[in-house]
């Protein structure tokens, strides 16, 4: 789950990491009031930052600087309600619903500090670089020697001397080194404390007077931890998420909207991806990824089928089930249960294999659904693509 910058910064603050003073606003007036409040505290410049989940906001005009509260209000007003297009959004962009009004700080140096999971070493890894303010992927590709890594030992957390070592690698000295060490330690503590999958401060700045401050922040939370962290779940912003994906999540289904025309419902993430790949090989384009998961009940399959049929641009549907935990008869019953509430006006291709596959096929044949039968995976993909033409 992605968090907004303002949510991420609130968490940094909670863990004792310095962030600039700021306030969220959703209107011109609120933005101006927020900036005026900062002006009273002595700030003379104000950053207006679009709060959207997509990165690359700067390049898309989602970050502007103002020299007065009224200018901050104007810039916020111009930004709010528009579709922001960044390198990470589609060409349609994303709607700006909120902006962050932040006091401008004096930047002496820009650094990068991030933590994510190193799957290979099976532990969190700190990524630090003196090249801050740019995409770390670019630094990793072009200047790999500018990347410093430190791994966090499971159970133990980051040792102070390890944090100090990262701070030295960032070129920090004296009291700035101590401040940097503290930020690194706290970020590691936060990463583990939140069960984050990503915690990134870019840039981490050194101010003219040697303070170390998180100027931008991006935190992703491990979806699997949300069941025990209602406080983090409450930070979810459904307006940033795909409508069908939300509907699927409510039924514990894994759904991702794609651009193509062949809808597919599969059990298992790997088989679902392989099915999408086969559709592509057969000359079609997948409309979605939909994994009905292990142990799917009749209700869940019915919900999955209903959601799938709501996808735009569909001209064909492929149901590919290889029964293991999921039983073919249950899948069939789920589809049949969904039928009365649906108008199925596009061809449906069904491939059932594995546990109770025959029973499932039989149930479908006895139902009102007209469908094309396929035996193998490639046959199913070919038939589904062909039917949609």
């Amino acid at each position: 789950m992605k968090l907004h910058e303002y949510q991420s910064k609130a968490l940094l603050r909670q863990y004792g990491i310095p962030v600039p003073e700021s306030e969220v606003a959703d209107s011109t007036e609120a933005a101006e009031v927020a900036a005026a409040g900062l002006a009273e505290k002595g700030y003379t410049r104000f950053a207006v930052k679009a709060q959207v989940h997509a990165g690359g906001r700067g390049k898309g005009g989602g970050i502007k600087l103002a020299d007065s509260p009224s200018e901050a209000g104007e810039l916020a007003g111009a930004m709010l309600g528009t579709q922001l297009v960044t390198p990470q959004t589609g060409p349609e962009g994303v709607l700006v619903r909120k902006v962050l009004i932040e006091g401008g700080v004096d930047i002496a140096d820009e650094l990068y500090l991030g933590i994510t999971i190193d799957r290979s070493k099976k532990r969190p890894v700190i990524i630090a670089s003196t090249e801050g303010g740019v995409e770390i992927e670019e630094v990793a590709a072009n200047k790999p020697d500018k990347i410093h890594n430190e791994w966090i030992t499971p159970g133990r957390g980051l040792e102070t001397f390890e944090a100090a070592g990262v701070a030295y690698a960032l070129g920090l000295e004296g009291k700035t080194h101590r401040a940097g060490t503290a930020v690194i330690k706290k970020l590691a503590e936060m990463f583990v404390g939140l069960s984050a999958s990503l915690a990134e401060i870019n840039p981490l700045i050194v101010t003219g007077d040697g303070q170390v401050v998180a100027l931008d922040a991006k935190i992703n939370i491990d979806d699997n931890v949300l069941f025990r962290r209602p406080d983090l779940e409450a930070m979810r912003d459904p307006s940033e998420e795909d409508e069908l994906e939300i509907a699927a999540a409510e039924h514990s289904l894994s759904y991702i909207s794609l651009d193509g025309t062949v809808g597919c419902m599969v059990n298992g993430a790997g088989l679902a991806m392989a099915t999408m790949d086969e559709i592509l090989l057969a000359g079609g384009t997948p409309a979605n990824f939909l994994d009905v998961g292990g142990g799917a009940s009749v209700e869940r399959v019915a919900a999955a089928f209903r959601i799938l049929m709501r996808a735009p641009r569909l001209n064909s549907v492929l149901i590919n089930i290889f029964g293991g935990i999921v039983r073919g008869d249950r899948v069939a019953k789920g589809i049949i249960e969904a039928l009365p509430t649906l108008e199925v006006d596009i061809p449906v291709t069904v491939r059932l294999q594995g546990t109770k596959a025959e029973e499932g096929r039989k149930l479908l044949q006895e139902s009102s659904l007209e469908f094309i039968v396929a035996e193998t995976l490639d046959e199913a993909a070919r038939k589904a693509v062909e039917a949609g033409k």
Partner: protein
Amino acid sequence: MSILVDADSRVVVQGITGTEGSFHTRQCIEYGTNVVAGVTPGKGGQTFDDSVPVFNTVEEARAKAEADVSLIFVPPAFAADAIKEAAAAGVRLALCVTEGIPTLDMVDVVAYCLECGTRLIGPNCPGVISPGKCKVGIMPGFVHLEGIVGVISRSGTLTYEAVDQLTRVGLGQSTSVGIGGDPVNGTSFRDCLEMFAEDEETKGVVLIGEIGGSAEEEAADYLADDYPLPVVAFIAGRTAPPGKRMGHAGAIIAGGKGTADEKMRVLSEAGVTVVESPSAIGVTMAEILGTD
């Protein structure tokens, strides 16, 4: 021969009295697996299906039923503790089916299992089957055939798909291992490749990867160094868009790394026969092994 499990394996099922646990325990027993014990905290003393003693702890199951392999069906909130319990009790092999365990829980668990000397398969995996000998997992037993091909996969159903193809072309499997789709898991492609290389029965290996992570690249590194068996590989997710989560937490393409194309390239360079279509896995292996 086979790897990981065989007819001598003594299996304890953690979570045996739950819906999934009881269903699959019956399936395993029906397949011929020697399920010697079950564990459900608080239900110690009961007997599952009038045949399998249930204990409160894995330690008891170890001591009283001499279980050496644990199959774990425990909800995500308790799964990490259950795996650690199995490892602390000293089972040789733990297989965790559970999907949705927090990644940092697994970071801790994997380190714990290493300390205890317990091999962990999974989590979020279908388990392991050595056809004709022992099934410790949730895969449909009937699609399998005893034979000479080793199968390793990050996916569940896609593995059944591959196994089904192998069986249809008459190629049985020595052992099929689902290593699980999560970002942090206990056993890697490489670990399994090493075991298959040392297994006399196994004559070829099917490797089924996915986008995300670098497990396939690490396997390629290892395979490039004179691996003794032919390997056929398929990587799922060529059509997956970057940055999207595809069901398996492991299958995220982050920052251009871990793409299907990259994985296919390095595997090819390592001498692996990479197939573009998942439907080609069986026939390709058959061609290579000359049993077509």
